[in-house]
């Protein structure tokens, strides 16, 4: 196993926040179903008013995903408005999308969480803005709105605050390519400019961060900018068996996805026990090419030119506005207002501290640890530790989301 891959596998991005498409879809389904159930329960327990119908129509997982994507583009626009660095915007977008994997957009308000994600991403990237400056940029008055959602966001992120981005990786690849003799700098500069442009938008607004590693995303973006360069880099890297004249792997039809090289594996010369073949052999090269092709496919659906699409008034009117109206009817009555929610939780916590009975029948505190594990489709690696701590402290990771 390549040492770089082993190191990447240690990251929280890989361990907690990488999923296959099926897993991600299943989690979103599950989140949606859970939100429907809990909101229906809460609406039913509310005092009935004459005007409200018995139960509103809920959003489907697909509609939720569309709203999240739209709000991600809003987030990127907000970041542009505040003149934040690429890393901050990218981290904020990753936070936002991660948060709405295990939390429904019907439960917590996306427009508020978007600001929270931006503010928290500033901190995560080491830029410490004052909250008053931050809200002034966006013409708001109440800092409580941002602060109330911060811990909630952290919980939603499973406290995995480090997000690995492909920006520096792009520079690394340019370094490597510029060492090659036969590539003119102008071409490199143009390719880098375009690739960075893509990286600023496309992977953030799609699920690329969940399905691919930063270097794969970077190579996909580079391949969108200048296909020859990306293939050259891969050919130079996986050089162990002499690279074939035509890069057959690169022409793999995208529909077959990352598993396209499977048949070609049989034809490739196999030398078992040869470590280098495993790391930089042609078999793994084909597989990498297939993965990058799939990633490239995903990114090409949301090229930077699509920024206009998401701000286009007619598109918004046709697609987003009906969903927003629907959302206004079906959102969670208890949790929609973050400030109120935080105040209520604080009161509950202080009450609990006063009585110190350790009774867990209060609504949101029940069965949190198991639920957390279940959300991720299996026990988390740190679940055992968490359980040990959680016993005495009433779950330091907070109540169920």
């Amino acid at each position, binding site marked *: *196993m*390549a*040492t*770089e*891959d082993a*190191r*990447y*596998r*240690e990251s929280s991005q*890989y361990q907690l926040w*990488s*999923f*296959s*498409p*099926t*897993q*991600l*879809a299943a989690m979103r389904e599950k989140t949606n179903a859970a939100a429907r159930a809990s909101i229906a329960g809460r609406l039913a327990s509310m005092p009935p008013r004459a005007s409200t119908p018995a139960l509103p129509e809920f959003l489907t997982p*697909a509609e939720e*995903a569309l709203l999240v994507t739209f709000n991600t583009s809003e987030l990127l626009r907000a970041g542009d408005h505040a003149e934040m660095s690429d890393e901050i915007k990218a981290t904020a977008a990753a936070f936002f999308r991660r948060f709405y994997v295990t939390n429904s957009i019907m439960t917590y308000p996306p427009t508020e969480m978007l600001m929270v994600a931006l503010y928290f991403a500033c901190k995560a990237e080491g830029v410490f803005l004052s909250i008053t400056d931050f809200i002034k940029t966006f013409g708001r008055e109440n800092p409580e709105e941002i602060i109330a959602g911060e811990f909630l966001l952290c919980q939603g992120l499973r406290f995995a605050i480090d997000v*690995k981005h*492909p920006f*520096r*990786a792009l*520079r*690394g*690849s*340019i*370094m*490597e390519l*510029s*060492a090659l003799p036969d590539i003119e*700098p102008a071409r490199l500069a143009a390719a880098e400019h375009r690739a960075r442009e893509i990286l600023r938008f496309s992977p953030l607004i799609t*699920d690329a961060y*969940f*399905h*691919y*590693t*930063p*270097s*794969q995303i*970077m*190579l996909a973006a580079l391949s969108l900018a200048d296909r020859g360069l990306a293939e050259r880099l891969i050919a130079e*890297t*996986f050089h162990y068996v002499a690279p074939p004249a035509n890069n057959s792997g690169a022409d793999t039809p995208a*529909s*077959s*996805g*990352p*598993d396209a090289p*499977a048949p070609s*594996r049989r034809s490739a010369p196999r030398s078992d026990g040869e470590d280098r073949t495993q*790391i*930089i052999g042609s078999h*793994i090269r084909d*597989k*990498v090419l297939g*993965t990058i092709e*799939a990633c490239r496919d995903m990114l090409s*659906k949301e090229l930077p030119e699509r920024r206009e699409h998401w701000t286009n008034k007619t598109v918004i009117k046709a697609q987003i506005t009906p969903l927003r109206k629907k959302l206004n009817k079906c959102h969670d009555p208890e949790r929609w207002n973050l400030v109120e929610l935080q105040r209520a939780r604080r009161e509950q916590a202080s009450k609990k501290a006063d009585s110190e009975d350790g009774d867990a029948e209060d609504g949101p505190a029940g069965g949190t640890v198991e639920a957390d594990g279940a959300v991720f489709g299996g026990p988390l690696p740190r679940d055992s530790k968490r359980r040990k701590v959680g016993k005495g402290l009433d779950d330091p990771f907070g109540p169920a989301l």
Partner: protein
Amino acid sequence: MSRNAPAGGRAVASNGTTVTTSSSLPAISTEDMCPVCKTIRYLNKDMEFLINPECYHSMCVNCVNRLFNDGPNQCPYAGCHKTLRRKGFRSAFFGDLTVEREVDIRRRVAAVFNQVEDDFETLKDYNNYLQMVEDLTFDLVSGTDAQRRAAEATLQQWELEHKADIERNRKAGKEADEQSRRRLAAEREAARQRRVEALREAEEEKLERARSREAELDSLAQGDVGTGAQRVQLKRRGQAAANRAVEAAVNAAVTAADVGRLSIRGLKEKKKAPAPEGPYDPFGGMDFVPSRYKLRAGLTHPGVEKYKHDPAHVTGGYSFDEYATRAMFEAFAGLGVFIEDEKEVGIGLSAGEVATISAGIAAVGCKMELD
């Protein structure tokens, strides 16, 4: 250390087992009379009885010299056919020769079965072992002839088979003995030092007292009774007090050091140190040598060029090589991590076997992206 005279007479049964028959012979006869030459203590004041561990028959030194000086000979006791040598004779430590014999046997068995508790997995095993050894010893000491022979055979076989173990344990035991002996000696030495110290101090104090008395008398004799003498007196006294304070401090330090060095008897000796595991690796054996790329010298990017002359970066000692290292690592880290395969099937497994399933997955993924 007093050596009792044998309490009773000893007769030897035909099978060689020593049996105490204190009733058959008067006690006085064996106490003062050699059973071989019938010499009595009255005639020979420093008569000494010797035994040979072959058969534990006692006889006087004169008889031993007379009978065995010319080489091995038969035991003079009637019915005992053991061949004895001069070298084997010694004086008995215990008055009762059965006890003497048992102690000898036990010593021999203990030399062979010298395992310690640490050699065993559980306490139960150790106890079983002790039980086995005790049974064997009992057979040797007071078993029937057959039992004795069997026990002897077992003992010899064990000794033959476990020569190395026995030797090792013997050495370990010796070392432990040596250590405890040394510790005791050190403690004794420390105690002696303290006593000497205390004596010296008492002596000095006495001298000091005499000196001050002398000074007092001198001042009286010179006749300048008044503030001067008083002051001298006070000063002297203050000096003594100060000296005492300093000494007390030194003593306190010494005793503190002693307390630090104090050893408590009966404490378990520390087991041998665990095997060294090599230096501590904070990264848990992770390899930092890149396997997909080489870190060439002079890797650079147009974007960082301008910082190379920026005092804000250069003055602080920022290393641009570090930046290159990191950028290169990020460019290649995770290139061979196929999240879809690994999250579904597991690390290192190829998707070839699950190609059909994965194709379905990819289809689902595409659809989701369209959403």
